[in-house]
């Protein structure tokens, strides 16, 4: 999903708090009116959204699993076509829901921004929420003729993405029975950091009623195959191709982060001049620009053996580790004087048998 043509019509900001010491809920402080943002402020707000939700970031499309009365989906859906007064009232229910979902004391408070509008081309209605933790910072300003430095304790939505989480519910077709016709996207930097997933659960699960997508194994395998195909068909030198495929194995199999995006692989490993072609290639193959749950359980043999081909009918098969540690492949000039190069393979093992 490309979050272009993002138009925000109503914004309201409530404040929620850490739980009290006895773990009871401390009531949110509600806004008493909708916010009016200047063109500049709105531009910055949109910028934060697209930064977090774009392909280069780790936003995930999630499954909506709770959609009955009192669920986030149901509360949000009621906000789409309401009057401003009802929007304000409804958004307070959303704030209460987040306060309830923050069960542990270690979860910090922050600003809850509830907003709605339309997004995409063609545009569809959405309701979004941002939980933004506050930061402290300095500001320099003029007080009369004198420049003074002020200390500000409550700034939020700075470009530091780890300090906010976004939930977006898109309503493609509300005539369909829930949860069909609705799509949920979540951005939370905690999801993509290994061992921090639990820290993210209260937001996407208890608050938004979503679950991690179940297509991780399928999408991971698809990513692997498509990328391999792309590298193979590129016009890089054979040695460079082999290096890139090495990197692909490592990226898919060994990286510890629970999610990945295709863009991560592209910007980390591909030469710059191929990065845009790569993202166009995946777009044409309809591979998601959003994050994917890294799951190699269904990849079977594909990650265990590598097969290199030489000419028409010579193959070398090895595990990726053995290939890396015990096999050396060099290109040498052909000795028969004909055009094509030859290959010299050094295997640091003795021949032990034949299949």
């Amino acid at each position, binding site marked *: 999903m*490309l*979050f*272009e*043509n*993002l*138009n925000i019509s109503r914004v309201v900001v409530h404040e929620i708090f850490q739980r009290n010491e006895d773990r009871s809920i401390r009531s949110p402080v509600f806004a008493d009116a909708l916010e009016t943002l200047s*063109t500049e402020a709105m*531009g910055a707000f*949109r*910028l934060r*959204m*697209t*930064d977090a*939700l*774009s*392909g*280069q*970031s780790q936003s995930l499309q999630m499954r909506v699993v709770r959609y009955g009365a009192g669920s986030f989906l149901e509360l949000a859906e009621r906000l789409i076509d309401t009057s401003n007064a009802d929007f304000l009232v409804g958004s307070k229910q959303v704030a209460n829901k987040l306060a309830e979902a923050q069960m542990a004391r270690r979860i910090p408070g922050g600003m809850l921004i509830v907003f709605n509008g339309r997004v995409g*081309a063609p*545009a569809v209605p959405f309701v979004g929420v941002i939980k933004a933790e506050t930061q402290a910072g300095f500001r320099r300003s003029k007080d009369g003729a004198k420049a003074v430095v002020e200390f500000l304790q409550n700034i939020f939505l700075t*470009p*530091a*993405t*780890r300090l906010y989480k976004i939930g977006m519910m898109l309503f493609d077709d509300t005539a369909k029975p829930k949860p069909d016709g609705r799509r949920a996207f979540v951005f939370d930097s905690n999801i993509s950091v290994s061992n921090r997933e639990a820290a993210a659960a209260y937001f996407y699960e208890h608050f938004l009623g979503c679950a991690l997508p179940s297509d991780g194994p399928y999408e991971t395998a698809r990513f692997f195959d498509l990328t391999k195909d792309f590298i193979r068909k590129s016009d890089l030198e054979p040695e460079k191709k082999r290096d890139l495929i090495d990197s692909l194995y490592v990226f898919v199999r060994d990286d510890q982060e629970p999610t990945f995006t295709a863009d991560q692989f*592209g*910007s980390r490993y591909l030469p*710059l*001049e191929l*990065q*845009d072609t790569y*993202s166009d290639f995946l777009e044409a193959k309809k591979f998601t620009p959003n994050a994917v749950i890294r799951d190699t359980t269904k990849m079977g043999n594909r990650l265990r053996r590598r097969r290199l081909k030489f000419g028409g009918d010579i193959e070398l098969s090895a595990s990726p580790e053995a290939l890396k540690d015990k096999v050396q492949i060099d290109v040498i000039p052909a000795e028969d004087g004909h055009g094509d190069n030859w290959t010299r393979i050094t295997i640091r093992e003795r021949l032990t048998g034949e299949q």
Partner: protein
Amino acid sequence: MYEAWGAFVSETLTALMARQIHPANVDLFFRIPLRPRIKSEPSLLAKAFHRGKPYMDPYAEIEDKVGLRVVVLFSEEIREVERAIRSSEHWTSAKARDFEDERAARPFEFDYQSLHYIVRAKSGVNYSGIEIEPNTPCEIQVRTILQHAYSELTHDTIYKPSIQAESDVKRAAAKSMALIEATDDYFAQVREKLERALAPGRLIAETVDREYRAFTDLEPEPSPLNTLLVDYFRQWAKEGFDDDLAEFLRAKPFLAERIQARATELLYRQPAVLLVYWGIKQAARQVPLSSPLTDEELAPFYSDLGKRLPNTRA
């Protein structure tokens, strides 16, 4: 009245020329600002008596009582000015001198060169409240800056009958005119080569100018920034760019609102902003590498397209 007529001719000609060479700047096209000149009475009388021509009524018959001089850079541009002179509906025009005809008639001579027109007011011309008498003449001299230099050198000296120039002075002047004509040929070559080098960029600039108007309903205000943007972003405008861009904008009509909302900034009044969007669409990762725009300036373009500026601090 002559003053008013001269000012009228000058302003009308400037407007005609501006329309003809749009979007180039007419103030740069005229190498010397147009300024109508009135012949003072003594010089008028001198002319009437000294030319040996029988003027019955020097005030009506001498055609350059008010004159205008147009100086351009290239000799081809002289013909463009001629076209503008002949296109006005406020006057009738008659050619008085044409250096090309004179060259053809006397191929061995190198002498004063200029194109002279006499324009005469039609009835009903009024300039800031002053009625211009029909048939009032005004002489327009059109020449290149090189021809102008020659004429400045020799004016009031060897052509006025009161001075009979020595033949070696005349010879030196003729040599310089010959050199000027040759130089003009070289100028034309330089111009042609420059145009060829600039042509692709200019075509793209014209395309974005046209699309910008149609797409945003805004009047573009191209500044040097526009050229800078075109020069950098045109690397992503490949063959068929006209159609590609039109289709891209049709698919993303919402970009018009974004541009309109930010039109208070000079950047968004540059037609080349369309090219910025196009470049990001084509090569999101390569655009920022040596872009003339800063990251802060580029980020909103990415955001509008639902993307994130690569390699920014997170």
